[in-house]
């Protein structure tokens, strides 16, 4: 406790000294901690204790609040980014894995992996707003930019479920390859990208008619195709690139978001799962679970420029301007 307070104090000092620095927050799944990285210095400036088995992590649209799944505590924690104190614990349902926040910051949609449901939380009053039955082992969550469509992917059912955010009912289901882990809308909400970890592919859907418009395979020389396991997806705002984290293949695939061709593979740390852009989209951070570090990629050069040691099994990352 004393250690945490002191660390938080140190962090405040550092933070005040460089108020404009971009800050990254990394959940360490097997340490029950959050690493806070100063991206000007490219180093961890403090590590705080959070709930058990922290996984999915995102900032509120106003960047004032950090939310993270404390899966084994059956809650989503709401953390004040100024004080780094847990402000509230939200009624997420059991074992939340990851979540998505609506663009207006009013709702969180989270996947409860052992109960086959998606839980909706109203963020204004911090109350449960509904639950939706989905497939087996729900994981990936996404909300369309206009907030109308919510996507959940279920790992053993192998589907992306299309949920109407008003009625909270599923209106369509799209089959994808084995074990879908992550879903991501493009910035205009026209396309939905879904990764299939064991299938080894990423499917791209046209949001309008929910038809698959591309299925992207990956092949890295010297790595068996079964070890190429796409998980995290990030799409650049300008529509140029898709970055796909390839798990135990230890690479990030750079995909031309217009032609759906893989143009490059960037070597990062071991078992790479999730990523986040800096707000200016000049850098991309990746979480490398087995090597316990974060790789910083320069988006203009498409090169890994730095590796930063964090805790054990980093899972997710969020970045604040």
């Amino acid at each position, binding site marked *: 406790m004393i250690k945490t307070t002191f660390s938080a104090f140190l962090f405040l000092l550092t933070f005040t000294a460089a108020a404009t620095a971009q800050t990254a927050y990394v959940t360490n799944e097997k340490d029950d901690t959050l690493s806070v990285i100063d991206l000007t210095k490219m180093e961890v400036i403090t590590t705080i204790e959070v709930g058990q088995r922290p996984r999915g992590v995102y900032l509120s649209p106003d960047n004032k609040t950090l939310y993270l799944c404390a899966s084994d505590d059956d809650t989503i924690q709401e953390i004040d980014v100024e004080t780094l104190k847990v402000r509230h614990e939200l009624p997420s349902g059991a074992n939340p894995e990851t979540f998505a926040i609506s663009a207006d910051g009013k709702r969180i949609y989270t996947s409860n992996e052992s109960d086959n449901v998606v839980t909706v939380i109203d963020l204004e009053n911090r109350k449960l707003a509904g639950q939706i039955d989905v497939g087996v082992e729900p994981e990936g969550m996404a909300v369309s930019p206009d907030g109308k469509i919510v996507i959940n992917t*279920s*790992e053993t059912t192998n*589907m992306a479920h299309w949920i109407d955010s008003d009625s909270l*009912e599923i*209106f369509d289901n799209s*089959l994808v390859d084995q074990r879908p882990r992550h879903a991501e809308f493009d910035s205009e909400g026209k396309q939905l990208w879904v990764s299939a970890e*064991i299938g080894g592919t990423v499917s791209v859907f046209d949001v309008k008619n929910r038809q698959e418009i591309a299925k992207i395979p990956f092949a890295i020389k010297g790595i068996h195709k079964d070890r190429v396991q796409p998980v995290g997806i990030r799409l650049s705002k300008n529509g140029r690139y898709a970055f796909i984290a390839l798990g135990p293949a230890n690479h990030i695939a750079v995909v031309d978001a217009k032609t759906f061709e893989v143009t490059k593979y960037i070597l990062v740390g071991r078992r790479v799962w999730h990523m986040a852009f800096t707000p200016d989209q000049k850098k991309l951070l990746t979480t490398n679970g087995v090597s316990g570090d974060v790789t910083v990629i320069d988006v203009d050069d498409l090169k890994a420029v730095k590796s930063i040691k964090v805790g054990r099994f980093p899972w997710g990352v969020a970045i604040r301007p």
Partner: protein
Amino acid sequence: MKTGNWDINVGRFFPIVLCLWTAILCLSAGRPLEAATLVPIDVEIIFLSQKVDLPPALSNIDSVPDDAGLMGARIAIGDNNTTGRFLKHKYSLIEETLAADANVAEAFARLASEGGKVFILDLPASSLDIVRNHAKAGQSLLFNTRATDDRFRSKDCHDFLLHTIPSRAMRTDSLAQYLITKRWKDWLLIVGSRPEDELFAQAIRKSAKKFGADIIKEKKWTGEHDARRTAQTEVPLFTQGIDYDVLMVADEIGDFGDYLMYRTWTPRLVAGTQGLVAKAWGRPIEQWGAAQLQERFLKESNRWMLSRDYAAWAAVRTIGEAVTRTKSGSTEEIRKFIASDKFQLAAFKGRKLSFRTWNGQLRMPVAVMSARSVVAQPPLKGYLHQRTELDTLGLDKPESSCGK
């Protein structure tokens, strides 16, 4: 004896679609966006199990649960139905457990005449033989989820018999890969007195030859004493004067193997059926999302998931996956899809699983485990195969007369 290539269509097939309503009925009106037309499919799966009379084993700390295998099938039915809900596919399990002395041929004939097409066979080898000889080619789809005998994968085949339980050869190959990687190459083989022990010993001998281990000496454990009481005096003498790296034990029912550990003359490891083991599934497996399956299983069954449960789970999920992808309930369509290169099953082993076309065996990594940790998950790095390194475990195509 029937042999044949199960991936070549040689028979007639009957649909297992029990109901086909018009598509219009499936759609509920009034939603903002409407699902595509879905045709309802009902899939009936028969779980046929049999009790076995086992002699009392000296190690009696773990008894075999009555619902071994069955709980795996039930959980997979639940998984299939959760998925099926979105597609109007419904799965049901007909459960039948035969007594040890039951007439298996009669039971199978009755179930088949009642319309049974897809069978999960949780049967001992002798009963699997009976079913194999009575099943008519093309009429049914059979999944062996219990018998590990290599002969069902090498010569005693059936066109429509698939195996989701790893064979003895797959298990001993997996152990051998690990032990050779560690350079623990000299083995002392101790074999129990039951016929299954000899089959496991045969698999060990074959794996030793395949991967380059030496069986320095072989000894028979006759089991004249209660090892629980006398192991401390018997085992040191039994293992004295032999220079080896690993004591390999073949004791399938767990009669004495557990008492070899820590009692050998020299400080040596025990592997095989006890000590370091290689199995389809076990309590320490938690990687690749397996923790989720373990948790679900424990919650439903109040016990840990066994290899037999895993095999039954994988079989029922295989059917579910085939029905989901083909949107068909016909046995022929299911079988064709399972045999095609389009079939892939995510089954908590870190890579997709598929069936060997020549003998119907589900290829899979086989974890090498101690009681509380996964030590390795062969196929290990460096063991290469022209098709897939998963085929370094178990009987490869040239070693099997099935499908020829």
